[in-house]
């Protein structure tokens, strides 16, 4: 059972986390793993914290991840990264978009430390990278690309899944965003 790997995709409603989770699960299944995914719908999606939990391995029972057992924490912004940081297990990797989305009505949040400088973190400006790839909404693909570099599943599988999930006119920009993330996946020294 220890061979089951755990991924959390965390962020704010509207950031494309549901789509990212769907792609990721399909890629993992195409890669030959048993996969389970759990996500949030409904009220929580209206600007609230959103988390998609993905588990893969030879056989997965629970669709939920346990605190302290996360192998890859993919945070779509910094406050949610903080909220879930303690869920990272020993040797777990944080992949984070450096942007901060403040809870409604707040403009300042004091975070315990600046996570952008956390050793062993992959920190990206996903929105800007996506914009340069031609589609600002593809920030989710940039982060998935960075994750892809660590999962060891061939990019060809990612491309195939992308082709089946993304409208043709956005395919090229999504693919480019994925590749840009993949190319920037090296964790900071530490």
């Amino acid at each position, binding site marked *: 059972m220890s061979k089951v790997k755990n991924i959390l995709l965390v962020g704010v409603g509207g950031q494309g986390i549901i789509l990212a989770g*769907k792609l990721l699960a*399909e890629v993992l299944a195409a890669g030959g793993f048993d996969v389970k995914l759990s996500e949030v*719908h409904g*009220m929580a999606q209206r600007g609230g914290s959103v988390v998609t939990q993905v588990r893969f391995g030879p056989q997965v029972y*629970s669709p939920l991840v346990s605190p302290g057992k996360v192998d890859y924490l993919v945070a779509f912004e910094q406050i949610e990264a903080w*909220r879930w940081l303690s869920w990272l297990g020993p040797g777990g990797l944080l992949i984070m978009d450096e942007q901060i989305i403040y809870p409604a009505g707040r403009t300042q949040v004091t975070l315990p430390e600046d996570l952008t400088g956390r050793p062993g973190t992959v920190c990206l400006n996903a929105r800007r990278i996506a914009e340069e790839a031609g589609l600002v909404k593809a920030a989710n693909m940039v982060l998935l690309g960075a994750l892809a570099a660590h999962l060891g599943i061939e990019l060809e599988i990612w491309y195939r899944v992308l082709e089946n999930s993304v409208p043709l006119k956005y395919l090229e920009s999504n693919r480019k965003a994925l590749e840009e993330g993949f190319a920037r996946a090296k964790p900071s020294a530490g």
Partner: protein
Amino acid sequence: MKKIMSGNEAIARGAYEAGVSVAAAYPGTPSTEILENIAQYPSIRAQWSPNEKVALEVGIGASLAGARVLVAMKHVGLNVAADPWMTIAYTGVNGGLVLVSADDPGMHSSQNEQDNRFYARMAGVPLLEPADSQEAKEFVRLALEISEEYDTPVLLRITTRIAHSKGLVELGERKEHDLRPYIKDPKKYVMIPGNARGRHVAVVERLAKLARLAEEIPINKVEMRGKLGVITSGVCYQYVREVLPEASVFKLGLTYPLPEDAIRAFAERVDELFVIEELEPFLEEQIRAMGIRVKGKELTGVLGELNQKRLAVSLGLEEPPPAVDVPPRPPVLCPGCPHRGVFYVLRRLRLTVLGDIGCYSLGALPPLDAMDTCICMGASIGSALGMEKADSVWAEKSVAVIGDSTFLHSGMTPLLDVVYNGGRTTVLILDNSTTAMTGHQDHPGTGRTLGGEAAPKVDLEKLVRALGVRRIRRVDAYDLDSLRRAVREEIEAPEPSVIIVTRPCALKVPPGRPSVVDEAKCNNCGLCLRLGCPAIQEGAWIDSHLCRGCGLCREVCPREAIGGDADVQS
């Protein structure tokens, strides 16, 4: 072929494969995607009904006509449909009928966490609980077979973690199911007392037969391992396998009626027996009533959703996770939401607001703080009338607020009550032309069906007039001045009034040009922040990526410091 599917997608697939030809529902998290996915299969006539009671009644008729039928709803939807539910338990079915109840332990998107397994026991109807997407698909077929063989509706009970978790599902082919002939049988279908007494006997006899089925059905499965035994069902099975990999497990798929002999035999093969289930001690109390010693709710409690961490902590195997000190991020009304201005105005007028179920329930949260109650679908109007009946002063101090989809679901009858019983209640129908909270489903007021076909569009104004309301006005949700004036006038009016506040959901229309703050004019008074718009941040600064140009902030700014050419589309 295997495909990744959520439990809801798998249930839709199961309906397709099992030859279901009619399906009906009212949207409600976590059940909504069942019908949305069923609508993808052209061989099933699928529809949104105005509410769950009607959906079930459509299902009853389709079953009488010999079709296999699936009806879906969230847990509280079955409260609405409980009336037909309790009596079709007596009549039984013709074509197979499965009712999917999607419960929401932990209340991810619900007003309570009731355990609908009791609806099976109360009605004397078999209950199935799948533990993953694959089972969700298979159990639909099984439910329909049981339904036809035992002449009973079947309750397929899932929870949020089954509905919204995804896993690999082996797909099969559709097996067409010919309509069974309808045979007139008043003793079975006309539930006047003389006939109903006979049918209650049939229910009791049927349960005895189902109890024998429970003993042998393969989905009630014993997995022998160690001397600790666990009886469990649904998603809890997965948590048990994670936390107690060495335990022997009796995994129940058919959880009502229970297989008493098999449970006794299992209990005798283990030294200690746990019952692990979410919410109420539904299995536990029945097993205790057999005289079997178990541990259950003293371990897990009855509150909220379980997971493997909570289970491990409750068994004393792990420590609770440390608390995290990060500011919470509650859900909020979206930027450009047409509900925002309404609650801003109601708050400024210091009115008591009887609320209802929908996105606009978020008007209760700060900084809007503009809702006093939220009980169930349609409760706003009746409870506003009730306050007024207790003390007539409330007629001028309170309003009812209800969305268009909710009004059509269960707002018409209480409005009729207001008219009939001489109330003066002011009702605001927030008409955003969709069922927004559950993800933009159509309803009788949108002019489209679930299948995307054009449909007659109900005229709210004429409908309300037909109920006997004479004072009806229509106001643009983005026009705060008109809104304020309308509410002030209508609460003073000596008769019932309805204000239809109109604007399509902001997520359904293209955004306008974002508003911009003129820093030279802004004195940081903070009035615009009281709108609770996620696009406006202290300072004041407007995030142009989030802003949809609704213009509310420009309307409330006393210094005309917010501008830009944020054209509001009409």
